[in-house]
């Protein structure tokens, strides 16, 4: 939770900024996305199951080319350690860490928002007492991270990091500033839709996930190869928060609701099955 430099922030960023990639046009990247999506929709028409996760092999996101396994994931029956998850609690996270607007002496610049929702497992059960971590760019689209050299202002009153422990019904709430879109080097004139990174734990470590929450109606959605790596429209929609006026508070902050569904617990049904035997 500090802004101090960590080891991985100091290296040269030449590997991040691929000069060759920046010559690609948005049009050609968009065409690649369109072709992959069309092939996916056709496969669903032909009876293939709808996809719920991003492709890890998704060429329009150029950094994925050498960083995805080429072999299928090996399906395995979970064993003891895989049926449990690390525990976090009040000892780990102070209640004030969920307010990203009070971490410095002054008020951060930007649109104050509250993002609230619940963490559920794939059976709809609340994930209670578990760690949620977020990080994000500021209202100008700039991260505190040393390697972010986008020429937009740093806000001395905004770090953009928060943590919370979910309540008994899986609920969480963060007070923050609405992040802005920012440019990146995947191709020429590439811009990421505004997003907040979320890191989540479940009741089994196999439910561990990191994802990104987006804001409704972002005009950059169709152009973004990271978001579009999720080939299924319904699945993509699950990463978009809803504006929620019941979360909005009078003369203070606008509100967004976003519920997160993890994959299924294996411990519950495997234990049930053992009980029946």
């Amino acid at each position: 939770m500090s802004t101090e430099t960590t080891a991985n922030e100091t290296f040269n960023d030449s590997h991040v900024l691929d000069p060759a990639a920046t010559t690609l046009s948005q049009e050609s990247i968009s065409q690649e996305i369109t072709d992959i999506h069309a092939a996916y929709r056709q496969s669903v028409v032909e009876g293939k199951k709808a996809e719920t996760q991003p492709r890890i092999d998704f060429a329009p996101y150029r950094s994925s080319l050498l960083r995805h396994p080429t072999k299928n994931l090996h399906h395995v029956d979970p064993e003891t350690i895989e049926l449990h998850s690390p525990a976090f609690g009040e000892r780990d996270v102070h209640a004030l860490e969920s307010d990203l607007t009070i971490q410095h002496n002054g008020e951060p610049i930007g649109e104050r928002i509250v993002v609230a929702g619940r963490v559920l497992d794939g059976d709809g059960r609340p994930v209670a007492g578990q760690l949620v971590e977020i990080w994000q760019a500021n209202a100008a689209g700039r991260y505190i991270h040393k390697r972010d050299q986008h020429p937009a202002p740093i806000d001395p009153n905004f770090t953009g990091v928060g943590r919370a422990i979910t309540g008994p019904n899986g609920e969480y709430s963060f007070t923050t500033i609405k992040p802005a879109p920012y440019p990146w080097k995947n191709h020429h004139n590439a811009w990421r839709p505004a997003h907040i990174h979320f890191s989540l734990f479940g009741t089994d470590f196999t439910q561990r996930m990191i994802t990104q929450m987006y804001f409704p109606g972002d005009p950059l959605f169709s152009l973004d190869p990271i978001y579009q790596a999720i080939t299924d429209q319904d699945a993509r929609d699950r990463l978009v928060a809803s504006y929620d006026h019941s979360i909005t508070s009078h003369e203070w902050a606008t509100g967004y609701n976003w519920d997160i569904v993890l994959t299924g617990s294996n411990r519950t049904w495997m234990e049930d099955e053992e009980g029946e035997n």
Partner: protein
Amino acid sequence: MPQAANTQAPALKLAPTPGQTIGPFYGYAMPFDKDNELVNQANPNSVRLHGVITDGKGEAIPDALLEIWQADEHGIVVSKDGSLVRDGYTFTGWGRTAVDNVGHYTFTTLNPGATEAGKAPFIMLTVFARGLLNRLFTRIYLPEDTAALASDPLLAALDDEQRRTLIATREEDGSLRFDIRLQGDLETVFLSYPRGS
């Protein structure tokens, strides 16, 4: 220990939220003080677990974040809180580390014991990286109990080359060495589980 038959896993009632890449800018947010020290180095039972993560060209990946989750040396799953404050005495079983500029990582931990008699002990590993659109899971097996390794259901289902990617090497000083290859020759075997999505 129930033996799952994958075909019997009940379907999810809700559609799971998709994952996304961790991106390049987690370095000021996710690491925390002593995040990779599950035990203090002064602990006489401490062991170094280390290795490098490489891409499809064999080049080091300098922007990956790794997490491990494991039982203690007696095979007990502890599930104690306090990981984020690291008091130096509480073994919580969980650790996190950002790899360094040359893709190298180190955890200070314990050799996990077998969670059941005759089972091969292993550490769960999760990989996040820029360029990796969703997290990957794998297992780091300890090399010593060759009988347990030989009867392990996962290892038995793999060919020799694949099996080698999941078994750590014990170095002369007692350290465990485990390299992660996201793609290419000796690509690490990554795992999926019932009810994954």
